């Protein structure tokens, strides 16, 4: 064998060994056949459609967080104007990022501008159109975009903590990348995402607030009417359950008028635990302890408000509104839940609150039995088509067909090994990509072989026919592969989940194919030619 050819085979051998090692040799070198099988199963990462599991896409309502920031600014501005004796007719939020102040008294408008310029650096001020002495405050775009990003980061973090606390295996929590306010949650092996979904969606906001009006109202309109259409400053209306009915029982909705500012929020809690309820047998309560700083506020507050009602606001709903009977220092409890509900509440409280509420956009759940069927059918189809194609190649091209079969099998091994090395996930469309790679591999071999046959017909000797055949087919193979690669790349860049899985197998398969159908196949031909009788005919 000439040295050049020898090195070719050494190189091919190294590639094959690397591939086999990548498939079965990691993470621990196998010592038994069972270990080989185990490694192989571990190395090929299966997508949710094959393994079973839940795929959720949710949207964070970022505008809420921006609107909240705006509300806070309105509250602060109102307070400071009051302190500085500036006279303003009206301060009102127009939308999520704009505040309108009307009828600023000309005598105090200078100090008003000073106040905004010095105390509200996140806002820009401009005269309001159509107003004699009004201003529009706009949140700076840089502040808005930073707030958006922070909100998304915080939401992702909170959701990750909650999912991890649920103890599910290998969850994926990431931005989807297709829109700037979407998060993707994948829960492998989870056949019923109901619980995970409610844990993710719980806002996790716990607040203790003073009830401003001892009465409850059957509707929001009734609550407003009782106050002559205008709520007392610093209060708002929130829905809740009617008092007196046992928790868990379905009751009519009532409305409370509450102070807007909470006394205690979830961030003030030091520890949360569940225990069996003392007053409702069979139910559970959540006990909590306050941090030292919060306790220092809470003690005086409760002793000052004895016989008033305090609302426990959970996820923007009044959960209950007990009457304060005495001074409370640093501990309390919330009654009463079923055991799983109490556990989930503690989990959510520990993981922290979401910065804005979320909405589900997409939910896909593949049951494990369907996943198992898909693997079986996909693998069977792949092997079936491979066998059909190989038999045909062997009949049609005889000995050279063996060459093509070797190239095809090697192509598959490289494809799967590459995916294992790259940590790519095999999905159901991915299996389709594998089948299509087989098709492209066949095409390359057929192109070369037909060209060699043509050259032989033109009277060329076997050696030069092979050489010419490969050279001429080379350009065509490159052109066809690059074109398909271009489209597969666009598919990968602009496609979503399953389509990307398809594109990645196709891309890897095409590259492997160029190697096997040109380099490897040529080397085998050259070896054969070198050992062939001079006058013998090429078996093609």
């Amino acid at each position, binding site marked *: 064998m000439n040295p050049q050819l020898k090195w070719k085979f050494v190189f091919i051998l190294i590639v094959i060994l690397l591939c086999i090692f990548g498939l079965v040799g990691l993470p621990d070198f196998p010592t038994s056949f069972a270990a080989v099988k185990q490694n192989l199963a571990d190395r090929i990462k299966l997508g949710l459609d094959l393994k079973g599991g839940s795929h959720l896409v949710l949207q964070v309502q970022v505008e809420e967080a921006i609107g909240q920031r705006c509300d806070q600014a309105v509250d602060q501005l109102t307070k400071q104007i009051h302190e500085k004796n500036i006279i303003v007719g009206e301060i009102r939020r127009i939308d999520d990022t704009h505040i309108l102040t009307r009828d600023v008294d000309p005598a105090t408008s200078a100090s008003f501008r000073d106040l905004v310029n010095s105390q509200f650096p996140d806002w820009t001020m401009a005269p309001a159109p159509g107003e004699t002495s009004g201003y529009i405050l706009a949140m700076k775009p840089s502040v808005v975009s930073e707030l958006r990003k922070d909100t998304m980061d915080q939401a992702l973090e909170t959701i990750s903590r909650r999912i991890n606390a649920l103890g599910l295996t290998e969850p994926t929590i990431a931005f989807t990348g297709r829109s700037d306010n979407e998060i993707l949650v994948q829960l492998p092996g989870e056949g019923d995402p109901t619980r995970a979904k409610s844990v993710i969606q719980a806002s996790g906001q716990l607040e203790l607030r003073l009830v401003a009006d001892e009465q409850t109202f059957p509707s929001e309109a009734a609550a407003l009417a009782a106050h002559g259409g205008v709520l007392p400053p610093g209060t708002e209306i929130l829905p809740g359950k009617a008092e007196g009915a046992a928790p868990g029982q379905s009751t009519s909705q009532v409305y409370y008028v509450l102070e807007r500012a909470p006394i205690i929020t979830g961030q003030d809690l030091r520890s949360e635990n569940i225990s069996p309820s003392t007053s409702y047998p069979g139910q559970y309560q959540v006990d909590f302890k306050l941090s030292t700083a919060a306790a220092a506020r809470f003690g005086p507050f409760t002793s000052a408000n004895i016989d008033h009602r305090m609302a426990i606001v959970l996820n923007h709903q009044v959960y209950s509104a007990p009457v304060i009977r005495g001074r409370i220092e640093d501990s309390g409890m919330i009654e009463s839940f079923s055991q799983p509900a109490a556990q989930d509440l503690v989990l959510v409280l520990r993981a922290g609150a979401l910065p804005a509420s979320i909405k589900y956009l*997409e939910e896909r759940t593949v049951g494990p039995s369907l996943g198992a069927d898909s693997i079986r059918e996909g693998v069977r189809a792949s092997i079936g088509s491979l066998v059909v194609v190989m038999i045909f190649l062997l009949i049609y091209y005889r000995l050279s067909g063996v060459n093509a079969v070797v190239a095809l099998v090697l192509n598959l091994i490289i494809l799967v090994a590459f995916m294992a090395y790259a940590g790519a996930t095999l999905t159901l469309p991915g299996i389709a990509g594998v089948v299509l790679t087989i098709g492209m591999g066949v095409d390359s071999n057929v192109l070369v072989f037909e060209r060699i046959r043509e050259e032989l017909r033109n009277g060329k000797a076997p050696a030069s026919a092979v050489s010419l055949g490969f050279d001429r087919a080379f350009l065509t193979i490159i052109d066809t592969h690059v074109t398909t690669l271009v489209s597969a790349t666009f598919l990968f860049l602009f496609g*979503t989940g399953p389509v990307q899985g398809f594109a990645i197998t196709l891309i890897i398969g095409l590259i492997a194919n160029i190697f096997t159908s040109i380099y490897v196949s040529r080397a085998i031909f050259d070896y054969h030619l070198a050992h062939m009788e001079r006058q013998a005919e090429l078996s093609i």
Partner: protein
Amino acid sequence: MELFKGVNVDWMGKAKYFVSLSLILLAVGWIAIWRHGIHYGIDFRGGTLVYVRFSGPPPIDQIRKGLQSAGLANSSIQGISDISNRSSQNDVVIGLEQQGTGDESLDAGKQAILDVLHKIFGTADAAGKQDFNSITPSALAAYLTQKDPLNLGTTTGAGDRYTQLAQKLTDARDKDYGGIVTSFDQLKSVDGATQPVLNTLQSNFSLGNFTIRNVEIVGPKVGAQLRRQAILATLYALAGMLVYIAFRFEWVYGVAAVIAVFHDVLITLGFFSLFHYEISLTVIAALLTLVGYSMNDTIVIFDRVRENLRLMRRESLPEIVNRSINQTLSRTILTSGLTFLTVLVLFLMGGEVLRAFSFAMVVGVVVGTYSSFGIAAPIVVVWNKYRGQGAVSSAGSAAEKRVAAARR
């Protein structure tokens, strides 16, 4: 063995028949689309899809009535016939169109469908037993740990043992019995499933006669977004290929190839409408693949035309194109034939999930092969004739031409 030797067909002389055939196919496709519309899958339309397996033949009429009396009038129910998988005979897919504005909870539709099924089949029986066929491994593990049928007490590792046992039991259910167990005796063969374990299961669980295999819920905004994304990906892919071919050959070749590919996609879409297949994300992947395949065939012929233009200086372009198609014919038929076989196997054996995908490929491979000689090649010939220089031409990259010009 050789099948196609010395073929000599005047392809360009028959171009007008090809064009007529294409026009007829396009017309049939467009009439189908006009009559039935394009069926978007739930990926693009938004909505709910629940895939249910029953232990026996599914009572489709009963379910349909149940859905209608629950007010789910715009629901659809469809049995599945899959010759490769006998157990899927008992599967049905229940679909529900997107309802309302999308402000209500996303999974309201799924809940409504499940309620109907539970009402008909009474899964949660009077004793309040849990359904073994729908329990998750973790829930089963928790249950077993609580009941402790092996009397492990609080020995260390008791929880782990029950977790493993639960996994084995659910694996047997999902992999050996297709997700639905009809008698607890079927679990006897499971490693660790001793009689006490089976007794515990028997007395605490019921065996529901259906199981949910797959749920897909897509919100309305996502549907529109995915649709836009798919169209964009296709257009970008086409533009990318046009640029590449224009760079390697000449722009008229690129245009011809893209027109041929467009023709393939349109005809395939027509067939989809005709046979009531739905366009899903995977079908878009299939359409793009067939775009790649069709391009492949076209490029192989164009490559040969380019080579022959250099060798055959005296022949006219139609003759050269004819010769090129004939020379590559054996390759074209072999490759397309084998690819056709491959996707046919996929179509017949690949299971329900890949059905629409492989249908697109089966149609696409045939149309794509035909369009390379029936549409793409004639466009190049006609264009050159129109420029009035039928004989002289003109493939070869711009770079090659510059070299030729420099030599002069």
